[in-house]
């Protein structure tokens, strides 16, 4: 019998690309938060139309499972997810099995809903409106290192109902984003070798750091926190010097001076 390695797949289980899914989430006055499957391109995913799809919606320690039916006739009406925590990142796991069988033929993990403007965003950081109960924002840095992970800025929904409203707000750009960059840079500084490991989320930041013109981080000595902080400061300085953040700073200053926006 052949040895099982990381690249063998004895179960023939397929990982289906996230790009085939379009998921929407909305706050519904009667049902609380709801989600629905806008579309799933099963032909492009090379799946048989008789295959059945299920979905596990999860956030923090809360989760719910929903059966969505056969791929040829998927349920696309809104489904209440009132029981799912709203102060943790919302993610979807999709699983596929043939009718009458429990063994899976495919799965997709970590699918996100499109925001209200219909954008998933290809940025290195997600911004997600949610209920933070008095806190304006907080950064969620992935606990794991997997390439499917991504830092996530959770923002208080009553302040920023959409990701776009946060991104376009000068004070958010001037006060929040540099601190977000600082925390992410510190995570990179603690594990610089991950920039070269394509199986980690940190590796996706290598080009960004290079584009800022910052030196790549070296393997800092464990106790050399000053060198880490110096490198992080340099990254944040270069980040804040980008045109968009200068623009936000100018907008914030103008607002303080009482100038019309």
């Amino acid at each position, binding site marked *: 019998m052949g040895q099982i390695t990381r690249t063998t797949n004895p179960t023939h289980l397929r990982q289906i690309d996230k790009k085939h899914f379009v998921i929407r989430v909305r706050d519904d006055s009667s049902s609380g938060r709801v989600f629905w499957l806008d579309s799933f391109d099963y032909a492009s995913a090379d799946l048989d139309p008789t295959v059945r799809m*299920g979905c596990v919606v999860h956030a923090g*320690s809360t*989760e719910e499972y929903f059966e969505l039916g056969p791929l040829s006739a998927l349920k696309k009406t809104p489904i209440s997810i009132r029981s799912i925590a709203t102060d943790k990142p919302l993610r979807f796991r999709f699983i596929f099995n043939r009718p009458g069988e429990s*063994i899976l033929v495919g799965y997709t993990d970590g699918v996100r809903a499109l925001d209200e403007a219909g954008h998933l965003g290809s940025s290195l950081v997600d911004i997600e409106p949610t209920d933070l109960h008095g806190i304006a924002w907080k950064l969620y840095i992935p606990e794991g290192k997997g390439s499917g992970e991504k830092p996530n800025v959770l923002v208080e929904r009553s302040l920023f109902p959409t990701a776009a409203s946060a991104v376009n707000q000068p004070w958010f750009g001037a006060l929040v984003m540099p601190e977000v960059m600082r925390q992410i840079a510190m995570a990179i500084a603690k594990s610089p070798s991950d920039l070269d490991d394509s199986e980690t989320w940190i590796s996706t930041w290598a080009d960004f750091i290079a584009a800022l013109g910052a030196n790549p981080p070296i393997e800092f000595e464990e106790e050399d926190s000053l060198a880490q902080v110096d490198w992080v400061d340099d990254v944040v300085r270069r980040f804040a010097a980008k045109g968009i953040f200068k623009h936000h700073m100018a907008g914030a200053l103008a607002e303080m001076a009482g100038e019309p926006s």
Partner: protein
Amino acid sequence: MIIQVRSLSEVGISKFSAWLDNPTTSAPKELLKDEMLTDVVEGEYLIDLSAKFSNSFELGEYLATQVFVGHEDRFSLLANHGMWAWISLAFVDSLMSKKRNSGVEKPLAKPHYLILSPRLAYRLVARTAWDLVNLHGMAAKVALGSPRSPWGDMAEQMTSRQEIYAHRSFWPVANALYAMPDGSVKKGVTTQRTRRDRLDPKSKSGLGGIRRLPFTFKQFERTYNLRQMASDEIATLLPAEYAKWRAGS
């Protein structure tokens, strides 16, 4: 005595906390009706302060079926720290550890009565018992049914892991494997498999126990849709190390 559910103020929580630090006198139940140190919780929930519970499952069942009936905002109840402190104080007599020989009862560690940090909130017995009964019904009994301690090792093992806390397929399987017909838990279920056991190919200690089931479950979940399988189907699917629990009593 039936009264409306209240919540302890910060000062009230401090007084309860001070008693937990030094429980040499009887619990400060006079706080429960102190207008200055408590507030009535919105929702008109009625609770019987004279109720007694022989295990945490009974408490959770009482709160789920007779106190917080038809409440739909689970998160606002979970977030009410003062209310859970008040309920813990109200039923503190049922929430003490019970020494087998001496019969002396004393409080458990403080996180079992008060929310000291979000990370340890799952240990607040009354809050988690109510939540688990809501989520899993009778299947929650396997974690909460210990007659000796309101927070046994089963409760800790089954609630401390985020990925199984709310998993609706996991709890019936754990119940089917580990619960006795009378609701108690089979002997040896929580035994830890030590390093020495792992190095000994003949040792079966800890195999198939509750400490290993979450990992096995997650492993099988990668390749099976466990969510649509019945608990006995899943139990049959599990590896040989679980065989003795399937059959044992």
